[in-house]
């Protein structure tokens, strides 16, 4: 599984990256986490706000602060 965090370095982007890392570790999910900071790469997913969360190339959320359960649900959908 490939999880991408789209963000240019705003505080919420760093928070989301940290949050996803912890979730993946705590649930033993075999996932690779990649941070996308290049704006043109980011725009391929059509986001209008950062941070963006992409799981297996599907955009799940953009611009929101998310709850752990929500992120875990999305990850399970893609497992």
């Amino acid at each position, binding site marked *: 599984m490939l999880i991408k965090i789209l963000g240019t370095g705003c505080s919420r982007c760093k928070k989301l990256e940290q949050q996803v890392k912890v979730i993946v570790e705590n649930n033993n999910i075999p996932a690779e986490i990649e941070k996308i900071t290049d704006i043109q790469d980011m725009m391929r997913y059509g986001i*209008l706000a950062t941070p963006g969360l992409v799981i297996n190339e599907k955009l799940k959320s*953009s611009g929101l602060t998310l709850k752990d359960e929500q992120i875990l649900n999305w990850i399970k959908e893609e497992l």
Partner: protein
Amino acid sequence: MEEKNYKAYYYLIIFPVLFGVYFHLDGNINVLVYDLLSLDPNSLFTSAIHFFIYEVIKVLILLSVIVFTVGIIRSYFSPEKTRKALEGKPLFAGNIMASLLGIVTPFCSCSAIPLFLGFVEARIPLGVTFSFLIAAPMINEVAVILLFGLFGWKTAVIYILTGLLIAIAAGWIIGRLKLERFVEPWVYEIKSAGNNAGEEKINFASRIDYGVMAVKDIVSKVWLYVVIGIAVGAGVHGYVPENFMAGIMGKDVWWSVPLSVLIGIPLYSNAAGIIPVVQSLIEKGASLGTSLAFMMSVIGLSLPEMIILKKVLKLPLICVFIGVVGTGIVTVGYLFNIIY
């Protein structure tokens, strides 16, 4: 998918308690300052301490309640919906809509670039996009709450209306100037896959969660600015002589409006900190127009945002942007100095 989440409703119980504290605040703080701490009611120090405790508690309560409410309202809006609403809108009408949507759409200036690119891709006119980018950061809930709490509802309404007017007019002017050639060319080559994050149906309990998260997000970010701002304000309130500011920021000092705007540009993100300071400056003789111009410049024209926008806009367009918005703010400043 969505589980029942009754826990969220418990948060609503907090409000009557907060309102109770809010409406009895003056009496309680009098008891605290004069009886419990037995400070001398006539000293400057007591006056400053009383001001500080009162304002900090008042503003933090107001901030939490309103950020929570605005968080729920914002959960009905998103940049995607706003973009859809603005697609195909002509200049003037589009400017009005973009400015109004700028107030309610969740926006952080760190997202200015993806938003700009997304709007360009949807062929939304440059001037309409600018109306949004001016209104969204300038008319934010933190600024409005502080103005309401410290100056009263009239000033808050004046701030919102003049802010809207500036966003509409500046966006319209930028649109009429046809400055598309000053947008970096790569911007027009962006092709996105389209936003495929489906709009999820969410229930009211989840909207309450949005509100709670907004409070955590925003209050944790601005509380320190509020405390520092009010501490400086309290110092001014207690120690600066009456009418001290009249000679510097008074309405008869013609150069004070443009100077305030210039000084305001590099000062950034201190909406929460700057408003309490400005309140005490007004108390010492600064005029409302000059103070309003100063606040708008601090909040609406920020250097870091210009640096972010530099990635997609060429310098002449950024200068026009600062020039047009700055002129609007100066006009508002003079207008209020004449009226009041």
